[in-house]
């Protein structure tokens, strides 16, 4: 890994992220910086839509590294996460060997378990050398995968090597930059967290969120962006089942600019609430007087 491209300080990391339009909390920049310096995976947990996945994308773009993403889901196994043998190609190879009259079994087995029959999945790709430097490996929503997969991942993250029984051991010349995200649909085991640097990504405060909206939604008027952020911040203080994340704020601001809105009105908010709240119960609670009150507070400044 060429260390020259890596930021030299927390401020450097902040600048690097900001230059790509990711306005991070200083605490997040600190943890990200440390994980690069120490070569430890970064474990990000937080509500949906607070920018956990985004940071991996931004980091890979800023450092000029390849981004390899492994989206986790229930039932994820080695064949879809690490590697698989291309059995169709292998069978053709066997038939060809037969046709050519090769009967040497030893030779045959070493031939058909060669690298060209190996289908490499994200985790194995991340261990491969890259001219641009070690890639950024994003393991997204790890909580959706089964616990058994977590144990396997633990092995890979500890020594960055994979052993394929028919083929041998593949070891990464430079360990990739690993970022793991979780939405907490279940608790991740302590053993895995122990190896990582942990950070809880929280909702941004009003000032930062305003900056994010302005940088992400070009063409939004100053007044509208103010009102949008105030309104969303007020929503988060309500006791909703699912509070809107930053992604929702950006969506909503974009939606409002698409509708050529200049400022928030009860009618407008009522019609576009689906961009912010994704549960019927939550939307039902935000009708009538509650909506009026929150809106009044948000637009009074």
């Amino acid at each position, binding site marked *: 890994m060429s260390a020259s491209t890596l930021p030299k300080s927390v401020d450097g990391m902040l600048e690097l992220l900001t230059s790509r339009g990711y306005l991070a909390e200083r605490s997040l920049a600190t943890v990200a910086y440390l994980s690069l310096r120490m070569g430890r995976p970064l474990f990000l947990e937080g509500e949906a839509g607070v920018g956990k996945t985004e940071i991996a994308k931004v980091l890979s773009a800023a450092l000029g590294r390849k981004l390899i993403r492994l989206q986790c889901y*229930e039932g*994820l*196994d080695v064949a879809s996460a690490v590697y698989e043998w291309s*059995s169709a190609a292998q069978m053709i190879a066997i038939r060809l060997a*037969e046709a050519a009259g090769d009967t040497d079994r030893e030779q045959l087995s070493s031939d058909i378990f060669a690298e060209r029959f190996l289908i490499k999945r994200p985790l194995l790709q991340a261990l491969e050398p890259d001219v641009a430097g070690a890639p950024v490996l994003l393991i997204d929503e790890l909580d959706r995968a089964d616990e058994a997969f977590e144990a396997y991942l633990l092995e890979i993250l500890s020594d960055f090597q994979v052993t394929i029984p028919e083929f041998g051991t593949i070891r990464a010349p430079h360990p990739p930059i690993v970022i793991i995200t979780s939405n907490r649909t279940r*608790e991740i085991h302590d053993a895995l967290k122990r190896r990582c640097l942990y950070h809880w990504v929280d909702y941004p405060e009003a000032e930062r969120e305003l900056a994010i909206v302005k940088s992400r939604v070009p063409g939004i008027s100053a007044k509208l962006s103010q009102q949008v952020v105030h309104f969303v911040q007020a929503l988060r203080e309500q006791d909703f*089942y699912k509070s809107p994340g930053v992604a929702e704020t950006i969506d909503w601001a974009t939606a409002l600019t698409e509708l050529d809105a200049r400022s928030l009105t009860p009618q407008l908010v009522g019609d576009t609430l689906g961009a912010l709240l994704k549960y019927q119960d939550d939307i039902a609670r935000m009708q009538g007087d509650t909506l009026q009150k929150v809106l009044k507070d948000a637009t009074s400044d």
Partner: protein
Amino acid sequence: MTAEVSCTMTTIDHLNPPTGHMADNVVGFGRALRAAGIPVGPGAVIDALDALQAIEIGNRADVYATLEAIFVKRHEHMLIFAQAFDLFFRAAEDWKHMLDSVPLPDHAKKKPPPASRRVQEALAQPSARDDVPQIQEQELRLSVSDKEILQKKDFAQMSAAEIAEVTRAIANMKLPQAELRTRRYQPDAKGLRLDMRRTLRSSLRTGGEIIDIRKLGRIEKPAPIVALLDISGSMSEYTRLFLHFLHAITDARKRVSVFLFGTRLTNVTRALRARDPDEALASCSSSVEDWAGGTRIATSLHSFNKLWGRRVLGQGAIVLLISDGLEREADAKLAFEMDRLHRSCRRLIWLNPLLRYSGFEAKAQGIKMMLPHVDEFRPVHNLTSMEGLIEALSAPPPPHHMSRIRSAA
């Protein structure tokens, strides 16, 4: 510890036991440990005798360390051993002058530590020793228990009779093993999916001719269980037993989360992971602040739904709600939270000890509110009904009925 082997039998007049024989003492001590729940076989007793001869018995601490090294094989037994040792060798007056200079394991706690009643009872069993205070044994009663048991200091003290009774009964309960098919596969001769990789590898033995076809089948795993246990005053007679039950389940299964609620919600999953029931229940009781207080089911369910629901109800969890449903302030909020809980788990089983009364009717407002939102409503007040619960957990889930597809009204 000095390890000077003396070939002659050392006389242990230091121990000054009533019987005067080291062998008898060690055998008796081994018996006491066994009665207190530490597995001690005759082999260990013989080892202990050998070890005591191998060291020069100079002080109590050496004897303690030696016997501990032999008898204690698991961390959670250390506490029981310490108490048993203290009680058993307490009568030795000769130790007194040495005790000042010898560091002893520290268990001079303010409250009686867990397991002590167990140990005392174990020592109080008929034996050659008669200087141990006789402790009155409590019988296992499923319906009556001292109120103070639920207070911190006494909750940690279960009588050996109770523990034995409950754990024996619970050990006999066959927990359901495999019931949820996961989406991952493993080699399985009866499986439905072709395992090309292993099939090809085996074909190489026959020069590339595919003769034996390998299959994959789905891995089956027990469903996660989430227990919500009401510890309010009206439930106090049952709380301990349920905790024992949950502790047994936690021991057998990997994925069990346990929450206690009275006026507030406490997650005691980790506390129940301790292997020894005394220790598990003790750390449970120390992490809860509202034993046997009031009950606020709606508020507790709300905080569960908000803070924990998404985190523990994944992978098709079964929820056991153990509560009598006696909630004074039953309102629409309770129904709402029950509904949410019901929708976010695979099965919601409500266990209500009040169901033991044959004339029980759902008159209380809270119970009426909660009933429409459960898949099953079962009694749970004695071992029989607990066994019934186990059966229910093993059975395939009933089909989702219409209660799930209610109109918004």
